[in-house]
């Protein structure tokens, strides 16, 4: 598996076109946020550096979806995956190698966002509202849900790789789940819901990794981490079994 990982990382490092825009995007976004939030506002409007640390994470699923889609579909489209099997690689090794590369990408994505949050957070007049422990929890939850999501997107690509627009499926799912989690969160905390609807919405809010990547954590780590682990393990298992049995064209 090591040789496959080296080959995949080599390919990852070659994708300058992908990671340069990330850097520019977050840099620009953080500068704008910092400037806007530090502008003289009315007395009751209060901005802390937390907003920078957490709000950027909202966009993580979109970046993960685009990356997983484009990185993996190239393997399927250009016959690379076929060639790996012909060259003697085990199918499970191929899946795991992809998973590792995607997780490493998710890690750097999170590291970049949070590092920038810390750097630019220093420019906020009001400093941080949350404690260091809370910020660490944010970081861990964000990383856990990023891993869960990127592997879920990987699973989607493996399942639908023969579709013409397979590369866009993760992005479509990421946008849809973002919209759904936004609606759920809004209804949950701003509208009077029936008892049954409340319970359903509350369950979904606590068990959808995409809803963890928001400005406030609304549930406990006892809900977040088991959900992330279940998503991660489930995605890997489904991808592995499906790919093991799949007839490659």
């Amino acid at each position, binding site marked *: 598996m090591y040789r496959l990982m080296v080959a995949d990382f080599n*390919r990852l490092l070659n994708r300058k076109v992908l990671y340069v825009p990330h850097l520019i995007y977050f840099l620009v976004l953080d500068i704008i946020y910092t400037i806007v939030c530090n502008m003289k506002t009315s007395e009751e409007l209060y901005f802390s550096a937390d907003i920078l640390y957490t709000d950027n994470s909202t966009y993580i699923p979109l970046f993960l979806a685009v990356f997983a889609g484009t990185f993996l579909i190239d393997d399927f489209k250009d016959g690379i995956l076929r*060639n790996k099997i*012909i*060259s003697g*690689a085990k199918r499970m090794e191929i899946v795991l190698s992809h998973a590792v590369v995607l997780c490493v990408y998710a890690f750097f994505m999170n590291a970049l966002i949070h590092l920038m949050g810390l750097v630019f957070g220093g420019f906020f007049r009001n400093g941080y509202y949350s404690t260091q422990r809370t910020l660490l929890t944010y970081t861990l939850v964000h990383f856990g849900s990023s891993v869960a999501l990127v592997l879920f997107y990987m699973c989607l690509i493996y399942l639908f790789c023969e579709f013409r627009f397979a590369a866009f499926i993760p992005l479509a799912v990421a946008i849809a789940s973002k919209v759904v989690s936004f609606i759920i969160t809004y209804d949950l905390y701003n509208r009077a819901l029936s008892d049954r609807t409340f319970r359903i919405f509350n369950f979904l809010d606590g068990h959808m990794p995409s809803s963890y990547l928001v400005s406030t954590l609304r549930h406990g780590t006892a809900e977040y981490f088991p959900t992330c682990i279940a998503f991660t393990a489930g995605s890997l298992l489904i991808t592995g079994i499906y790919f093991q049995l799949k007839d*490659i064209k």
Partner: protein
Amino acid sequence: MEYAVRTKGLGKTYGKFTALSDFSMNIPKGSIYGFVGKNGAGKTTLIRLLTGLQKPTAGEFEIFGIRGDSREIRKSRMRMGAVVESPAIYMGMTALDNLKQQYITMGLPSYEGIEELLKLVGLENTGKKKARNFSLGMKQRLGIAIALCGDPDFLILDEPINGLDPQGIIEIRELILKLNREKGITILISSHILDELSRLATHYGFIDRGHLIREMSAEELEAASRKSVRMTVDDTKVLAGIMDELGIEYKILDDQKADVYSELTFSELAARFAEKKCNIIKMEEHDESLEAFYLALVGGNSACTD
């Protein structure tokens, strides 16, 4: 005789569709095995089974004496290179980087031999040009170079000349012959371009609707096939009359061309044509062995005569 690949009763079905059935073939070591069949006859399916992309639903196969269902088959596959359908290329990388990537994937200890491979396929001067900007022929040659990484003993080429221009076809043909003669690599080529196959193959396997209908060497094919003389004359109606008189089998191709299936005495023929005031413009021996043999095997309406 030693064999690189043997299959016995191999079968593959997709739902209710049978792509291969009771398929038994033998590819001798050191041969260029021409795998002939129409589009959809099952050529690529067999290749997918041999390369491990798909699993057979019946029968068995062995590569270099190791059975396909054995754990050791991966070792046999390490001695094998393949270009299945389209070459497996990282489009955003150069030819050199593509080969490096394949070396890494195969776990080869160093990049030794890459320059030689690039030279072998004529891509040594492509520099920083990305593979996506290569011509179809260059991509095909790069695909073959990738398949040659790790010095394989057996090479599978699935329709290697499809879509290539005449120059590209010649380059690939020469490369295949070179690999076989100089490196002793056993090569399986699937193609429906018979004329091209007949210039390369030392052995043939004819496949139709998932069945191997005949397997033979090039010598056996030569012995089994008919020769003809292609005649270009003023009027093939006159030619038809003369051949009918002589009781010779012929086939009219157009108003001026016909194939005649017999040993001909030129002086006698010339006298008869002069008598009927018809000119013989050209006479040439026409070797249609593979094409005619294939048509006789699978019948007409073939897509396999291009």
